[in-house]
């Protein structure tokens, strides 16, 4: 009999265990190995989800354990979906999502395209560019808060230098018009390197011979870019958009550090609002319904997106 890994594993199995599993089908053995993971998944993910759905139909408050829990039917869902303040939070989240992804893809792809060109100091620049994403969001939030400070902040002075305005004449974090953009700028600064790295992987996966063949066919650089580079990098770009979309939909720490959701509720993203409902107001039933609505939204959008991504990959 050849000395294969299977034979060696069989020889190493204790006799008692071997006797017990003898006669089990491959499928049964596979289930035995997978069962602990499935159990953990059920316990940690599925059970809480079902429990949350259950709570979303009640008036339960986690800080008032002794209080009578009443079934309120769809009232929590109705209140959330008809609450104009929550729709404003949704709008703020949509604004944040759209513009961060737009700028990160635009700048990230451009940087990746430039870094992909061989030049002196290429590695050093790559390292410098990826530094922001290595920092903690809490640290980034705090130091950008200083940068945005109207009286001593570097950001205001730089803007003032180029526009001739008084540095203390505008407040990035305190102005209703500027605050939504201030969080977009910081998130873009922090996470563009991530998109750049994914794009760089896409660009480096394009074989040189395709460009060489295009050169032979006398295709212009612009045509090569639109007919080779973009289509071949597109699946990577779409993946980056998916990652950033999911991450930014649940954005919390960075924005809390920067604006705390203010001024007023201008930058109060849904995740911040949800946290307030669940762990500051302790409206657990209401917050559960809120979480389910957000979950269904993200899950639905992500499913549609993944289908589109698969179609692009198949082309």
């Amino acid at each position, binding site marked *: 009999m050849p000395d294969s890994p299977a034979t060696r594993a069989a020889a190493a199995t204790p006799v008692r265990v071997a006797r017990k599993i003898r006669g089990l089908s491959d499928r049964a053995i596979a289930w035995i190995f997978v069962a602990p993971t499935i159990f953990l998944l059920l316990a940690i993910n599925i059970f809480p989800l079902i429990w949350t759905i259950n709570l979303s139909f009640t008036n339960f408050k*986690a800080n*008032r354990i002794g209080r009578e829990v009443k079934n309120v039917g769809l009232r929590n869902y109705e209140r959330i979906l008809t609450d104009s*303040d929550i729709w404003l939070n949704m709008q703020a989240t949509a604004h944040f999502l759209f513009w961060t992804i737009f700028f990160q893809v635009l700048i990230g792809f451009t940087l990746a395209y430039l870094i992909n060109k061989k030049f002196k100091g290429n590695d050093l620049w790559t390292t410098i560019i990826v530094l922001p994403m290595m920092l903690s969001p809490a640290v980034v939030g705090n130091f950008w808060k200083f940068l945005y400070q109207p009286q001593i902040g570097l950001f205001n002075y730089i803007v003032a230098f180029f526009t001739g305005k008084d540095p203390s004449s505008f407040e990035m*974090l305190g102005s209703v018009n500027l605050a939504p953009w201030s969080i977009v700028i910081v998130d873009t600064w922090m996470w563009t390197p991530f998109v750049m790295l994914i794009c760089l992987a896409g660009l480096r996966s394009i074989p040189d011979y395709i460009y060489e063949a295009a050169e032979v066919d006398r295709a212009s650089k612009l045509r090569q870019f639109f007919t080779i580079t973009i289509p071949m990098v597109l699946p990577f770009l779409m993946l980056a958009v998916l990652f950033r979309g999911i991450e930014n939909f649940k954005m919390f720490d960075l924005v809390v550090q920067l604006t*705390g959701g203010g*001024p*007023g509720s201008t930058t109060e993203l849904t995740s911040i609002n949800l946290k*307030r409902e669940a762990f500051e107001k*302790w409206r657990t039933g209401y917050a559960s319904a809120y979480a389910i609505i957000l979950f269904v939204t993200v899950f639905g959008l992500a499913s549609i997106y993944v289908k589109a991504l698969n179609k692009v990959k198949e082309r």
Partner: protein
Amino acid sequence: MKNLKLASVSVFAMAAASVASTAQAEDLTLCWAAWDPANALVELSKEFESQSGHKMSFEFIPWPNFADRMLNELNSGGKLCDLLIGDSQWIGGGAENGHYVKLNDFFDKENISMSDFADATVYAYSTWPKGTPNYYALPAMGDANGWFYRKDWFARDDIKAAFKEATGRDLAEPKSQKELLEIAQFFQGREIDGKTVYGASIFTERGSEGITMGVTSALYPWGFKYENTPGSYDMDGAVNSAEAVEALEFYKEFYETATPPGYTNSYMGESLDAFKSGQVAMAMNWFAFFPGLYADPNTGGDKIDFFVNPPQNNAGSTLGGQGISVVAYSDKQDAALEYIKWFANPEVQAKWWSLGGYSAHNSVLNDPGFKDSAPFAGDFLEAMGSVQDFWQEPAYAELLLAMQKRLHDYIVADQGTAQEALDKLVEDWTEVFEDEGKL
């Protein structure tokens, strides 16, 4: 043989006594906010350690996270704190949710009388339901929102002359809210010693309780009431009254015309920083910080003075301060009660005041020398005579966060009118009380 027996009994008795004494000595943890008075309490508690044999540990949480951290601890039945100096607004939840030990029997047994403490503090820090003789805390730290200003700037001839020319009256501590605003507007953007300074630092913080504490300092002097009839939860017409609207518009004007640029999210720390860095002429903050401000080498001493929140239609100050409670989940309640008994002692209360804590004990407050014992002592007494507190209901967090949102939306984000903000607040609060089954 007899000697041997005697020796054995003695050794046994000594061993038993030693075990008993070890069992009584506890390691108590007291939880509070991280601020100046907490350091004074550490110093004060050394005396308790030496007297009782118990060891005191402290868990001080920065103010912005204090409520979140402590309420989570209580809601989860945590055993971190044996004693908690919790905010006055927590008393309803602490009592109704069973977080705090009811102290009536203990007070009776130890002859601790609530009449020995200032009435306003007993009402605010100890009782639930409000005003009933059901005590869940001992008044630990009296406090109110007050004001301090640059006395040296107010005394300068050039500034006094400029103020007289601008307003037609003498520059002095304001006697009304409108005078306060006028002084702040006078200083706004003024050059003093080659530096641009601003009027005043006020509370505008969004995340915890800041802007509510600031705005109520304007609402109360305008005669703000939470209910038309106390205990009825009938808020329409009280919370959104014409006086309340006027007060809210006043605070917004104050924010827009008399505060430094960028003060969109400022609370205690920012107020202190603005004053100590010489950026503002006046600032609002809790009396608890005043000893530290007076001792500051750069802006304290003869450069600073204090005044009580000015009246408008009536006198009114926002209540701060806390009572000390025994946490119901503690395994060391007996030792914790010992601490409260010790703390209630008039001599300890006198030392508490001398170290920088604000005693609420009548023996301290009614002492003839109290008013002159510190430059802010008289103002403190005056403020405590007209304090008003926020809701202390078990659902206070929901009520507070609703107010934070409505006020910040109107004042800082400039959305809607004062009337709309207060009308929406009435709607929010009505919904909370309906959920609570009180409406």
